């Protein structure tokens, strides 16, 4: 996916929203900026398929250099798929963060959270601060 066409949470998750069978599905990952800041990822704890998630609440955890950090769901909804190849191929998050490094797909239940997301330019500005 083209990072310039994605939406971003202030907490560095990216979101691509697509229509599927009349529902809105958000594909979620973490930005290249976040991956670089985390450095040397060694573990990821993915959300569970079927799990209900809330916007801006932790739904995934990663460990790098002995530091455990949360990843936040940018939208509210239900997890319908996770990228279960990631735990054994964490380098994918760095090599292809906006493609094969996706983390989860969420069927959006409340679109209100989408209004809080940043476009690419605004996110880049945040990263530069």
């Amino acid at each position, binding site marked *: 996916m083209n990072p310039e066409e994605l939406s971003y949470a202030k907490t560095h998750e990216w979101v691509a929203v697509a229509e599927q069978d009349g529902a809105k599905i958000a594909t979620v990952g973490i930005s290249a900026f976040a991956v670089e800041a985390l450095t040397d990822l060694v*573990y990821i704890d993915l959300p569970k398929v079927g799990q209900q998630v809330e916007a801006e609440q932790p739904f995934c955890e990663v460990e790098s*250099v*002995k530091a455990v950090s949360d990843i936040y769901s940018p939208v509210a909804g239900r997890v319908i798929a996770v990228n279960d190849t990631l735990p054994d191929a964490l380098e994918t998050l760095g090599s292809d963060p906006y493609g094969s490094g996706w983390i989860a797909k969420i069927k959006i239940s409340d679109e209100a959270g989408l209004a809080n997301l940043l476009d690419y330019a605004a996110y880049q500005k945040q990263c530069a601060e």
Partner: protein
Amino acid sequence: MVEPITTQAIETDDQSSVCRLLIDPPADGAWNMAVDEALLIETAQTETPTLRLYQWQSPTLSLGYFQRHEDRIQHSSSLAAEVVRRWSGGGAILHDRELTYSIVLPAAHPFARDTQTLYRTVHQAIIGLLERLLSSVATEWQFKSCVQSAPVEQTAEPFLCFQRRSPGDVLLRPTKQSGNSLDYKILGSAQRRRRGVVLQHGSLLLNRSLMAPDLPGINDLLQSSLSPAEIIESMPQALAIALGVSLHQDAATACYERAAAIAANRYRDSSWSRRR
């Protein structure tokens, strides 16, 4: 369970940023980990840093957040020890004859953002402190900061934190290097981050534990007699200077109340320690 806790105040001259100081008596693993978690949660609201020093009332194995409980079988000498899973990463630590510190910084603190900066800052301050406290001890060892990770595959990472090597770890290394000389890790730290707030806690190994006889402490290597009390007396000031904060007294009642709930709901529940 040990509670409530008494605190002790140490003041510094630097008024740039106020930091709460908690010096806790020895407690069990569930309580110790619950207080650290409570501090992190509280700091997200109060934005006040905290420095805490504490010990463990009985030998306790703390597992890194992502470690598997069943892997403790790899370290047979600590199998009889109590076990608690930390909220932070890294390898397992056998807490016995040591001193543990924790530092919680709000997102706005200049050292909160970068993981390595905080490891390096705290560890360098502790190296300086140890060199001062042990300046009269004739020794052929020197404190060094580890510059790179041990060249091992992830799957071969040792179970114990003190058998691993990560950048910033504090090592004791012989001053006269020879072909077979070894260094020993005496301080390792780990972090938990949430919404920009960072909790960093670390273990300073003073003496070899019977439950980890393969890991000598500072006193074993230097033939010194450094006590936790001596370090507690001077470490807060050393860390306050390094972090640019001034220390103040606080009963931390709300934090301990929150910790009691966290301990009951998470750290005293065996399913937490066995969740992986």
